[in-house]
């Protein structure tokens, strides 16, 4: 597997208040990586350093020459009032090559193709605000894909979405990864998303653990990552993380009933 980009001993932020400390992280071709951690752990910062939109205070960031990246921001950060249709939103990501403002016939066909693949082909002329949450997320994935990236960076793609939509997004990303696209995403969702990914990076300002879910999702690693006690069960061969407080509370509740 060839290396797309790597962070080596990267520190970000101020000396006394670093957001990331000595982070080593390598992303290979066709990888699918989830970065997990509590709020304020530096997940978005790590993603932005990978993307190159935030400089590292110390350490080195190495990217393969000519690497094409696309970034899908958190939906909460999008200006939904901006006057832009789905088609315009997708087209804006192709900024090299064609100089003319309007799309070529080939580009129109490509937009139709990418929207069709994401099952939003009939929404091309709708304003981005007129869509459902899942459709909105798909528009920004479509915009990212239209730029023909080799690496897709996604910040909390399943934040605030229901279970059905979370499954849809996960299947979609699985499919894209199977077609050769490398994906790095951040998520809070350990059971719904992270446990399904081939590789998880537990981050809390530092990389606590990095590996496959069954290696990484252990009570010890989770406690060091989240600073809270958690238990890990197994269901159909997959790790399931349970908040110890809730479990103890449930036991206590059941005991008092008996």
């Amino acid at each position, binding site marked *: 597997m060839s290396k797309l980009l790597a962070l080596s001993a990267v520190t970000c932020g101020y000396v006394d208040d670093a957001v990331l400390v000595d982070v080593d992280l390598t992303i290979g071709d066709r990888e699918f990586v989830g970065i997990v951690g509590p709020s304020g752990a530096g997940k978005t910062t790590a993603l932005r350093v990978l*993307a190159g939109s935030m400089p590292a205070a110390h350490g080195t960031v190495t990217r393969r020459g000519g690497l094409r990246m696309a970034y899908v921001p958190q939906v909460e950060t*999008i200006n939904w009032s901006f006057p832009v249709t789905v088609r315009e939103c997708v087209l804006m*990501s192709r*900024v090299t090559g064609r100089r003319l403002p309007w799309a070529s016939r080939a580009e129109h066909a490509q937009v139709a193709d990418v929207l069709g693949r994401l099952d939003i082909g009939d929404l091309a002329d709708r*304003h981005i605000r007129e869509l459902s949450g899942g459709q909105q997320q798909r528009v920004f994935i479509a915009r990212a894909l239209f730029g023909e990236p080799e690496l897709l960076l996604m910040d909390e793609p399943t934040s605030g979405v229901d279970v059905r939509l979370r499954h849809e997004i996960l299947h979609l990303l699985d499919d894209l990864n199977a077609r050769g696209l490398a994906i790095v995403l951040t998520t809070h969702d350990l059971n719904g998303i992270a446990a399904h990914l081939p590789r998880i990076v537990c981050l809390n300002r530092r990389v606590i653990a990095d590996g496959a879910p069954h290696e990484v999702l252990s009570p010890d690693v989770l406690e060091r990552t989240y600073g809270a006690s958690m238990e890990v069960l197994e269901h159909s061969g997959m790790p399931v993380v349970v908040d110890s407080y809730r479990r103890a509370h449930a036991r206590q509740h059941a005991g008092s009933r008996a």
Partner: protein
Amino acid sequence: MIGELLRPFDFEFFRNGLLVATMAGALCGAIGVYVVLKGMSYIGHGLSHALFGGFAASSLLGVNFLLGAGAWGIASALMINTVTRRRVIGSDAAIGVITTASFALGLALFALFGTTGRSFDAALFGSILGVGTDDVIAIFVVCILAFALIFLRYRALLFTTFDPDVADVAGVNTARMDALLTVVLACSILATMQVLGVTLVAAVLVIPASIARMLTNSFARMLQLATGIGAVCGFVGMNLSYQLDVQSGPTIVLVAAALFAAVFIATGVTGRRRAAAITAQSPLAAR
């Protein structure tokens, strides 16, 4: 009646003024779309005042107005752009300091040394009387530059305006786009100052774009509509200015404001919702 309306066309100064006002309206309409959507209205307002300092200095030193005020305006624009991007101090505070100090300097220079060359009132409120061939050429050149930028860098500008952080990752040089846009804004204000006046340029940047926003949800259509609306307001306003014997700047702004009110009423709830959203900046855009 028709003869009365066409009579001003016999005068060269009016034809020049009408040409400049129409081009200025189209130019400010188009640039105003980016100004409004990027939340740069305050920069536009400030820059027009900053240019007044350059206007006063070039007027007193006998330097060509377009060169003197132009250099001053571009320097102010780049300074504002740098401060805004680097967040050295709060951008609103920085813009306020740079532009109002420049405006105050212009007023002080006029108070100390009096006016020579171009009229003080014309600079503040606009006048067609002083519009000459050099003004027509200046605004024509700025129009060519501005529309060439919009035409050739359409997607990069749209991406930078909508989602600057993501545009950066996608390979757009957003710092350069912002700098280019601010310089074009400064040049547009400079070229339209004679007809609109520094105190009213900001209105012509904001109103056509706001009207267009109420009429559409598409960026491309908003850009086309704002350009057309700006040109129509400039043309109608300049004609009314002559007929009513009122300065050109206020007349053009009042025509634009009347059109805004009409569209605001005609588009009902939809238009009102869209107009209200203009100031709703996303966290990304606000950064």
